[in-house]
């Protein structure tokens, strides 16, 4: 067995105002796995993700990335390996042009010149946003900003890609194009989403989070088929959706 790409043990966290959010979250993900993280609003998914590269510091428990414990000393290295796409694109984009913003990450890790250009244009092309490269990111529509936000992280070539609802606000074609891009990457993937068919399509494995804990973990199709589990966690398949029609054929078998 290889060492887990991502290991989270007994994670606890309360926000400074006292709201207890994480209550002992536990899981691990092996290199190359693609895992969906599902759960109701307010379950603590985003809070969990912010621990994976040391943006939040846990009150208890620990996080290990590829064998490296997340600590102030390791944080820079870890942030090179773990790329996070935030839930709100406005949290992600801060430079004056889209080009600068996408270049920011790789440039911090010493990429320069042509290689930098290549990365920037490659990432933007992957999300279909090569056309806006010289516009200010805050003058884009929300869906466009979300696509650029994904590009800023793709450009860093992370080993582990964590996406917090990447497909929301995207138009349906962009959503499919993103799925194609993600499916084509050789990468460990953790994706939060409320779009269950999307999770089924992309991730053979899923975890359900509620009240700050992982309450279920298993093959996505099996979890989505468990009616009781689903309704206990405010999950339900859309009207008119038939899982048997959705063929996650592009996925490696779990």
């Amino acid at each position, binding site marked *: 067995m290889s060492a887990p790409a991502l290991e989270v043990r007994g994670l606890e966290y309360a926000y400074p105002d006292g709201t207890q959010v994480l209550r002992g979250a536990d899981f691990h993900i092996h290199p190359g796995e693609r895992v969906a993280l599902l759960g109701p609003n307010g379950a603590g998914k985003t809070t969990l993700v912010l621990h994976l590269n040391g*943006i939040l510091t846990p009150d208890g428990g620990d996080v290990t990335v590829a064998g490296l414990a997340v600590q102030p000393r390791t944080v820079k290295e870890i942030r090179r390996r773990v790329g996070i796409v935030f839930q709100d694109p*406005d949290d992600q984009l801060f430079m004056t042009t889209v080009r600068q913003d996408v270049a920011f990450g790789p440039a911090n890790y010493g990429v320069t010149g042509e290689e930098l250009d290549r990365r920037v244009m490659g990432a933007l092309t992957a999300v279909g946003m090569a056309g806006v490269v010289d516009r200010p990111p805050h003058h884009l529509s929300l869906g466009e900003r979300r696509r650029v936000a994904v590009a800023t992280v793709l450009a860093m070539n992370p080993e582990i890609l964590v996406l917090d609802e990447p497909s929301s606000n995207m138009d349906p074609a962009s959503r499919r194009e993103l799925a194609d891009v993600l499916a084509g990457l050789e990468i460990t993937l953790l994706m939060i989403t409320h779009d269950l068919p999307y999770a089924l399509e992309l991730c053979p494995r899923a975890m359900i989070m509620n009240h700050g804990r992982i309450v279920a973990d298993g093959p996505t199709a099996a979890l989505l088929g468990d009616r009781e589990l689903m309704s206990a966690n405010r999950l339900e398949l859309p009207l008119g959706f038939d899982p048997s029609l959705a063929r996650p054929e592009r996925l490696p078998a779990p």
Partner: protein
Amino acid sequence: MSAGHAHALYVHGDSRVHALPAHVKLVALLIVIVAVVATPRERVGVFAAHAVVIIAAAACAHLSPRFIGGRLLIGAPFLAFAVLLPFVGGGDRVVVGALSLSVGGLWGAWSVLVKGTLALAASVVVTATTPVPALLTGLGRLRVPVVITEIAGFMVRYLEVIAGEMHRAKVAMAARGYQPRWAWQGTALATSAGALFIRSHERGERVYDAMLSRGYQGRLPQLGATAATRADWARALALPLCAAAAAALAVIG
């Protein structure tokens, strides 16, 4: 900088000082500060009296000495430069150890320090017992023009917007491997200041649009500003008037 520092000034409580209307407290504050500033610097005893007045007010407000001390420290770096005065001042000099110090400069340093510290302590008592919106309403009652209080109101709100935008940018930068050695790093500050301005402005504009969309007419729905009774005035002004009397005696005598 954490978001919402504008609120960190206020210490929640239900003391008598908290309950006083804001404009009354502002008048009281002004009296104390004028008294402190007017006191001749040689009258050390009178400064002690002022200090007693301010400490009494702080005690009524249930503010701990620790809290006041902490807030004074924030102001300290600026007052600390008074330390230079004895070296650069003119006039008679005294020799203290190896140093030759200007007597006038020493008095100057003392004056700046004591007056600055007392005034700072007095204003800490008021800001710690009055929420910012109430202070603005208080200013309005003291006939500060509406344009000024309105702009000030937006300023307080937008402080949070800007702090929020700065914070978002910082987290986003950190997440993509940026570790600045100086937070202000000359060029980084200069280049990001422009972007920060536009971002904050546009976020502020969108928030304002959302307010307009819900019928905003230039005035927030008011949750009943309290009018001051004669008793309020008497209670609020008792201590400051002591300070004023002490100062007046000192100036005359």
